[in-house]
């Protein structure tokens, strides 16, 4: 009976402690109004990506659709951002392309970060030994080319799809996480609490994941949020040159590359998708900066 009460008390305490830490983090994050603007932008982008069919005025225009009667119209009251050469609503196509852009960012980071983090942790744990220098030399080789060039070279051998361009960017991306985590891990490796855990007979897995990894979380999280914008931008670049999602699937980079050939006449086909790329990347960059600042102040 008694024990039951104390257990529920502890639960309440930990819940309120959790709530307090959320409040504290929010206070630190929201001190910078620009970060809050970024957060609002990110929420909007995510909502559009999840629910395009309820937001887009003409959901059926996202696929291969023709209505030549309304082709090449400049922005007007019916089609707010104009129509393309087969009469599809540009606004609806932009709204439907958010999902692909977001999938690209999240997918690349969720594959590249764990691979890089584990490589970095191992190299850091075995720092000074042969295996560590082998891992870090491989990392050096992957970083000896600009990421976009390596991604282009890899996508050259794959057929152009959204998934393959994600893979191509991942190949050029994991090494950054490995180098980042290696830096922190190898310096933490020689701290006394790691040494003492070792002397107490803790397993390798315990030391790597419970003693060393927690020290790396803040740099990893900061890099992950800041990378969202960068990866989405790279994805747009790949599809701009025809190595991303293929028509009729709506994609911002593809829309820009199809539109700019029709400049200066049908300018709305280029300007609005380009502005959408800017807005998505800008939101994630502002949000990422805010998270980075928050984690930095917390550490200090």
């Amino acid at each position, binding site marked *: 009976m008694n024990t039951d009460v104390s257990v529920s008390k502890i639960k309440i305490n930990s819940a309120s402690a959790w709530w307090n830490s959320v409040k504290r983090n929010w206070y630190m994050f929201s001190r910078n109004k620009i970060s809050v603007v970024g957060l609002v932008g990110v929420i909007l982008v995510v909502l559009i990506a999840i629910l395009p069919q309820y937001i887009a005025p003409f959901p059926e225009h996202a696929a291969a659709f023709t209505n030549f009667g309304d082709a090449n119209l400049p922005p007007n009251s019916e089609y707010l951002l104009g129509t393309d050469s087969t009469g599809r609503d540009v606004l609806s196509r932009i709204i439907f392309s958010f999902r692909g852009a977001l999938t690209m960012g999240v997918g690349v980071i969720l594959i590249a970060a764990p691979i890089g983090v584990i490589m970095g942790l191992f190299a850091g744990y075995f720092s000074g030994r042969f295996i560590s220098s082998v891992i870090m030399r491989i990392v*050096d080789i992957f970083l*000896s080319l600009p990421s976009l*060039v390596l991604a282009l*070279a890899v996508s050259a*051998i794959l057929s152009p799809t959204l998934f393959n361009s994600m893979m191509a960017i991942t190949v050029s991306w994991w090494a950054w996480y490995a180098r980042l985590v290696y830096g922190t891990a190898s310096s933490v490796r020689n701290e006394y609490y790691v040494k003492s855990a070792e002397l107490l007979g803790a397993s390798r897995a315990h030391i790597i994941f419970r003693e060393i990894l927690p020290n790396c979380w803040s740099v990893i999280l900061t890099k992950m949020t800041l990378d969202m914008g960068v990866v989405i*931008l790279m994805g*747009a670049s790949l599809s701009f040159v*025809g190595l991303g999602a293929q028509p009729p699937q709506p994609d911002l980079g593809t829309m820009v590359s199809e539109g700019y050939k029709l*400049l200066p006449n049908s300018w709305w086909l280029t300007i609005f998708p380009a502005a959408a*790329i800017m807005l998505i990347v800008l939101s994630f960059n502002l949000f990422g900066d805010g998270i980075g600042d928050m984690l930095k102040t917390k550490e200090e």
Partner: protein
Amino acid sequence: MHGIKYIIKRLAWSIVVLLGLSVLIFVIARVIPGDPASMALGPTASEEAKELFRKENNLDEPLPVQYIYWLGDAVKGDFGKSTHTKRPVSQDIKELLPATVELIILAAALEIIIGIGLGILSASKPGGMLDNSVRVTSYLGIATPSFVWGILFMLVFSYWTGLLPTVGRLTRGITPPRTITGLFVFDGLLTGNFEAAWDTFKHIIMPGTALALTGIAQTARMTRSSMVDNMDKDFVASEIASGIPKRKVISLYVLRPSSIPVVSIIALDIAAMLGNAFMVEQVFSYPGVSKYCLAAILNKDLNAIVGVVMVIGIAFLLVNIFVDIMSAFLDPRIRLKENSA
């Protein structure tokens, strides 16, 4: 003395990395699905012709042996024949590389001059009008892909106002300058062909600026924050307290320690430019090595891809070595650490 030893060590290590990179790229190029012989000769080629092609290109040997053959040729500067231009890849690269180098030099110069300049001006009055407007514009600069800048410039400066030419490197009908460096602006000025120099400059100013904008934004932000950090240090307070004018303190004592992170961000930006040049050269139909490589990628022309990627890898390593040497020169702590190690 120590400096030379450090540079030699760095160069030797770069050769190892380059070998690794060549293995990586070679493997990527060989796992491509499809038969290279029928891709190069076309679907109508006879079985004997394909057999001969495989023999000539050592494609019947195991992969490691193929790599050794390839490496032996590559060291001599021979990357094989391009299947879509039907010419030796090294010759194509030799003709197209100067155009890209010219673009990157212009972009890097813009980044260094404007980026550092704006950063210093922002840092000298943090929170001021200029500082705030630079911050807002730099967010936009970083969030916009360079090909979008290129398209916007083209719309404004070519289509709407007609100030600048849209595509290419030189207007048809103007004689290109005699080749000395391969950079048309330099060669034009050196040989007195001012018409060609001015015309090329008008062609590269838009793609060059489009390439530089992200870098300008990042350099300005990094210069600003690094200088503001250093201006909070005690040595600056003591210098100002002892009556040295603020302008002199900044130029003599704050600028140098602040420039170390700036130098490394510039290197990263130049690397990004090597990648973004692919998109920008495409937008402006600029006859450079990136546009060539992009065509090779879309045509699955393996020799050309491997050749260009290796050249970009070498360029990137050279930039990195230069940056390491610059940082060692700027920061005595790095120099001392290297010497004691």
